[in-house]
């Protein structure tokens, strides 16, 4: 009996130690599901793929046919300032405007009242360079590639992709007036290059903190205003930049869209 107790003692001690070595102690307690909803809008309108017509600050009319982006590395902080980091293996999501279910990100966090949400728009560089067997689900390059969110020739994920039609765009080889924004770049593996990984911090206090409890599912409702891609620090013109992929200009676009997320409200 004594032995077992000693063992338990040691185990507890070890657990305590390993917890302590975490940068931020996780709130204890039972875990419950927290839902984070990404509701894509454009200016003051709800986004409608293909059928909606919009005008950017450059005065160009356009419609959007595809919108996808990676959200990863989710963290939440309680009103008391205690942070919980969602285990990385369950913290990669591909939000796709064409798939409503993909717009609700479900994570398991300890019960608590959360006032801050932090996430990465894109895929961190560590995961971007990890062994292929560690890249599952939304990150499997052999399926992510089919979703069109992976550059094979320049090994790396496309973090944000938006495509659409606009008379302002020149006719492409397929005969369409198409614009394409494929934004990625994790900083480079063997040589430094552009880094478009963006960490977004959202304060939930004004819109309503998330009260995570077992048996309920709090839903943090985020609005993603993709008009910000055009109308931001840089005024992006489709005519001048119909296609932006792996190029220096992509940094300006990424800087613009960093401000596209706002917290609308929380359903507790």
């Amino acid at each position, binding site marked *: 009996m004594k032995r077992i107790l000693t063992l338990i003692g040691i185990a507890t001690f070890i657990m305590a130690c390993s917890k302590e070595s975490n940068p931020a102690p996780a709130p204890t307690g039972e875990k419950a599901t927290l839902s984070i909803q990404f509701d894509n809008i454009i200016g003051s309108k709800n986004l409608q793929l293909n059928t909606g017509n919009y005008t950017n600050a450059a005065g160009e009319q356009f419609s959007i046919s595809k919108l996808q982006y990676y959200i990863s590395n989710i963290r939440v902080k309680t009103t008391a300032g205690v942070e919980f980091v969602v285990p990385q293996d369950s913290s990669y999501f591909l939000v796709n405007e064409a798939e409503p279910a993909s717009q609700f990100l479900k994570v398991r966090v300890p019960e608590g009242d959360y006032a801050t949400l932090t996430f990465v728009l894109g895929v961190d560089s560590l995961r971007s*360079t990890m*062994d*292929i*067997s560690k*890249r599952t689900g939304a990150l*499997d*390059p*052999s*399926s992510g*590639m*089919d979703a069109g969110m*992976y550059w*094979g*020739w*320049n*090994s790396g994920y496309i973090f944000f992709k938006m495509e659409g039609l606009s008379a302002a765009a020149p006719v492409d080889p397929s005969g369409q007036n198409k614009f394409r924004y494929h934004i990625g770049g994790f900083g*480079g*593996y*063997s*040589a*430094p*290059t*552009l880094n478009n990984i963006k960490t977004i911090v959202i304060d939930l206090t004004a819109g309503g903190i998330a009260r995570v409890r077992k048996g309920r599912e709090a839903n943090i409702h985020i609005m993603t205003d993709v008009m910000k891609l055009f109308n931001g620090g840089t005024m992006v013109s489709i005519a001048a930049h119909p296609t932006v992929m*792996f*190029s*220096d200009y992509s940094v300006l676009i990424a800087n613009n869209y960093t401000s596209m997320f706002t917290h609308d409200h929380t359903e507790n």
Partner: protein
Amino acid sequence: MKHRPILVGALLVVVIYGCSKADDVMSFMGFRKPANFGAPVYKLENNDITQAGFELGRKLFYEPRLSRNNTISCGDCHIQTSAFTHHGHDVSHGIDDRLGSRNSPPIMNMAWSQTFMWDGGVFDLDLQPIVPITNPVEMDETMANVLEKLRAHPQYPALFKKAFGTSEITGPRMMKAMSQFMVMLVSANSRYDSVVRQQGPAFTPDEQAGYVIFKSKCSNCHQEPLFTDNSFRNNGIGVGYNDDQGRYTTTLNPADKYCFKVPSLRNLAYTAPYMHDGRLLTLDAVLDHYTHEMQDMPTLDPLLKQNSTLGIAVTTTERGLLLSFLNTLNDKHFITDKRFSEQAQ
């Protein structure tokens, strides 16, 4: 009692049979680092090379189902008898005879490569096959389709089981198997290697003289024993027909414009044409380039413009010697090794 010899005979047969089976297993020696090579870069600890994995990788490498219309395999553009290049093609052609924009490089000594492709855009061999499979001018297929085709195939589920323990066919498993095959493609049995390892006759006087010239004029970039330093440089061949800017396209660093991976010089006898777009057909043309056709550009490697003189000075006599040295880098054993051939299956 009378039957004893027969019994013994039968026993012997069993023993011999057993032995030869064991030999078969023993004959797969896994990955071996040649004595004159450094430590491999490929993370072998993440991909244990086994006979079953290697054989599965080989089968996949020669599998036309990896292409949209089941016509093109990796082995079509990477032919063993040409040291796994696309012999006779300046830029390789793929599905429906669509043309690519670059010359297919040899697949050899991949375990020591830090990056892949002429621009180094791929940093892990395990991620490499995705590129040709999904490239519209190469195999034009989707990974999801390839995996479906393999799952529906009468042999692959069992082969995956043999290699990975279960018959599940996933992208990562497929990539790992293909890497096992490619990592095993080690070319280290040229005359040069046997001289360096002191396993065979020494260089002839001409070869030795050529080696000395090589070391003073070429090995800064084409570093032994791989004959590449894995760096990206502009060797002054000038802008190609399609303005391929090489390394710059993956780093966006202006200093990398028109820089390409320094290629190995092993097996040159089998890998013509030369350079990233296959524009030079012979080694004489290559040496003409280095001696008097070099083009100055802002990113030209400084080694090729010393004391403001363009190019590398090589006399006619020196050229002959240099060529005889380069000839010692051909590895007949590599291009005829049965383990690597399509017929081996």
